[in-house]
């Protein structure tokens, strides 16, 4: 099963990779992928994450041409977020829905001019390469596969001291295809010193049952004093499969603040690796996962403190419902030189049913003495006292559950620096918890008075 998947994907990758600019990367990727074996339950970093659905899924082809349906059009607007957009449908750029290519900062690998090609050669694959030395399990064969199959991608280059006023939204959408298929997507973003930008990565699909496997890889190079706000929203339909990696390089006094949301797919594996390469950088990494039904969502984060005087703060929260499973592995690695580091991690989880499962493992690996590090993890159900308080005031049990669950997540939404995105996400989450619209109704009355009409 694993061997067949491996062979199929390698064949597909070789067939797909046709861009001469990326030939060296393709070759290295194909070689590494051919040599790697598919992880199983005995592989430490995949201990709780069964790849069964992926290995048996027959994802041996790319998508055939797909129509732009009304459903996809709607999804692509991401709740009417005001942003410059790039929209891909089943891996193909939809020029009708995309307006961001008009910006000088945005281009595709296949349309890059000489200067941009130089940037691609300089940076593509380099951030990812750090992961192979950190021993955290985040350098896995799906990254090699992405390198191997890469044909095109998105390059965003924000020049020195430039500030992108509008958020950039990159949507990777998938729609139903007659046969199961793979999508390989790649994003490289380079912020020169003093640059500022907001990036929204959006993975979604229409309402049809899905048969796609997305292998998404994002590399972010953040220069001196640059700031990036990064939102990675994974909202695919529940049949889709998604393996995604985000690799970040931080230079002097730079800031990376990120919010990762995992709602969709049957199986998601998300690796987030943040490298503090030069002193003074700060990373604010937050995330939420809310699996339901049979979903399995896996988040592996790794913060590499390689130099002194850096700080990081990480908060992940999860709510598991029905028969869903979630895996969280949060690693903080302090290298011997990284004195004066401050690093914190918190992971809180709610289990709502008898059949839901959570596996969490906050890890600290510390080789320097003058540091302050802490992590905490909790697993529990909704607090009995809070439930009682609400029920004693005439709120039904179900409704109280929905309100408390929403509140648990909303704490993180309120801390989001970009209020517009919080406004987009709230109705999504309210709908998720409420399922039945009548229950989620109340949640939004006070919260998003300004958005009334759009959520009805």
């Amino acid at each position, binding site marked *: 099963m694993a061997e067949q998947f491996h062979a199929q994907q390698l064949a597909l990758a070789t067939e797909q990779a046709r861009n001469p600019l990326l030939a060296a990367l393709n070759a290295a990727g194909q070689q590494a992928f051919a040599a790697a074996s598919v992880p199983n339950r005995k592989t430490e970093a995949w201990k709780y994450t069964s790849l069964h659905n992926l290995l048996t899924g027959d994802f041996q082809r790319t998508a055939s041409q797909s129509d732009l349906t009304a459903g996809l059009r709607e999804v692509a607007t991401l709740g009417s977020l005001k942003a410059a957009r790039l929209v891909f449908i089943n891996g193909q750029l939809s020029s009708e829905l995309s307006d961001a290519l008009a910006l000088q900062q945005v281009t595709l690998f296949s349309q890059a001019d000489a200067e941009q090609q130089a940037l691609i050669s300089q940076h593509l694959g380099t951030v990812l390469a750090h992961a192979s030395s950190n021993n955290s399990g985040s350098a896995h064969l799906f990254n090699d596969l992405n390198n191997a199959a890469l044909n095109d991608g998105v390059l965003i280059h924000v020049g020195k001291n430039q500030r992108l006023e509008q958020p950039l939204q990159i949507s990777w959408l998938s729609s139903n295809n007659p046969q199961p298929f793979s999508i390989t997507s790649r994003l490289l973003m380079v912020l020169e010193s003093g640059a500022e930008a907001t990036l929204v990565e959006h993975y979604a699909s229409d309402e049809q049952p899905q048969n796609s496997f997305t292998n998404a890889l994002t590399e972010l190079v953040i220069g001196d004093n640059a700031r990036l706000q990064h939102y990675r929203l994974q909202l695919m339909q529940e049949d889709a499969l998604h393996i995604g990696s985000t690799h970040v390089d931080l230079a002097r006094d730079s800031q990376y603040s990120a919010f990762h949301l995992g709602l969709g797919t049957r199986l998601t594996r998300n690796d987030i690796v943040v490298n503090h390469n030069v002193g003074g950088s700060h990373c604010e990494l937050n995330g939420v996962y809310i699996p339901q039904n049979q979903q399995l969502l896996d988040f592996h984060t790794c913060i590499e403190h390689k130099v002194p005087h850096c700080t990081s703060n990480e908060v992940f929260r999860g709510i598991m419902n029905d028969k869903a499973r979630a895996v969280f592995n949060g690693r903080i690695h302090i290298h011997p030189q990284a004195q004066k580091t401050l690093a914190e991690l918190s992971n809180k989880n709610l289990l709502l049913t008898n059949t839901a*499962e959570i596996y969490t493992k906050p890890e600290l690996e510390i080789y320097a003495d003058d540091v302050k*590090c802490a992590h905490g993890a909790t*697993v529990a159900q909704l607090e009995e006292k809070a439930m009682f308080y609400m029920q004693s005031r005439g709120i039904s049990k179900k409704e109280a559950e929905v309100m408390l669950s929403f509140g648990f997540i909303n704490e993180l939404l309120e801390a989001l620096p970009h209020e517009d995105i919080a406004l987009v996400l709230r109705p999504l989450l309210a709908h998720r918890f409420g399922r039945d619209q009548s229950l989620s109704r109340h949640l939004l009355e006070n919260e998003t008075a300004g958005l009334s009409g759009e959520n009805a």
Partner: protein
Amino acid sequence: MSSNAEIERRIGNDYQAGFVTDIESDTIAPGLSEDVVRFISAKKGEPEWMTEWRLKAFRAWQEMAEPTWAHVHYPEVDFQALSYYSAPKSMADKPKSLDEVDPELLRTYEKLGIPLHEQMALAGIAVDAVFDSVSVATTFRAKLAEAGVIFMPISEAVHEHPELVKKYLGTVVPQRDNFYAALNSAVFSDGSFVYIPKGVRCPMELSTYFRINEAKTGQFERTLIIADEGSHVSYLEGCTAPMRDENQLHAAVVELIALDNSEIKYSTVQNWYPGDKEGKGGIYNFVTKRAVAHTNAKVSWTQVETGSAVTWKYPSCVLKGDNSVGEFYSVALTNNYQQADTGTKMIHLGKNTRSTIISKGISAGKSQNAYRGLVRMNPTAAGARNYTQCDSLLIGDQCGAHTFPYIESKHPSAVVEHEATTSTVSDDQLFLCRQRGIDTEKAVSMIVNGFCKEVFKELPMEFAVEAGKLLEVSLEGSVG
């Protein structure tokens, strides 16, 4: 000159239990095969079922691979280069009482600060002393027998209480449990056996001292403690070994069975030889310890780990019965080139089971100290509760402190809390102490003792003092 002498003395002092006792011993040639297993079994005059039990373990072991997942690095152990049995020769015909014990042996224990007679009598502690692989003396047997408590070497228990041994041996740690447990099951030579009858509160603390003496031998002891319904026992083990340049292997198995409403408290002060300042020599301590707690039972592990070159040890609790309680209190100190990967597993099966984990890791010198723990809430563990706190203290900038807690929850009403912090002895703290005339070394020792207080208070009183001193000695030379 005199200051030089003082320094010499201090250096020599590092490992106080590092002497070799020169007594003739009966050691078999290195190597491991079915014949060796049979030899050990025959040497013990064991019944057929016991020999078979060992052979089954040996066959399982042959198919197993040495685990490599722990955060420790050491050269591969050549299991064929070890001798699997060593007994002091004069023990061939076992002493009937303490008076018959080889005086050389007794002096060894006295050097270790384990005076078998008087002090223990005063302290009211019964001791089973295991020298290399053989139990040499068990004190207070008669007095314990009055209460119905059985406390004897496990090799004797096989003969005298086969029904108990047969019923419980291997039920908590099966032969195939892991590589080292399988090895131990095949070649274990002795250890303590304790049985506390129904409703009995053991009248005194029970204690075992282990010592590896012979060179190139491995020590494989096996401890089995059964607390019958409603009983209570507190048990303490201590370990030392001579200073030798080569690494020696210690692979023990401890099984605790706490039946309904009983309580077992198991404390360890582990001070195996940690190797010298360059990391040469020292004991490889690969130990499997596990307890099963039945309904309303309580099991408490307390450990002070200061010795061994490499430690791989996870005293665990399977909380099988409803309302059972598991506790784990640990201080693990590593200095120089020591490496420790230690922690616990709390497996919650019963309803309303509770567990507490308090782990304090201290790393100094060039050592690596890791906490690795598992808290598992099974789908049956309604209302279960866990609280985990693991703190690390780093002394010096070349050591490492790591935390790998695994949390698995499958029941919504189970509550798991985990907290971990890492910090160093801060300059402010040291400044405050020194300003008040306390020298740096003393100050560090005070701060470390304060850091470990929560664990020390769980130790029996006499040993809490000893543990504090042990830390002080182990930390010598790590500051300034």
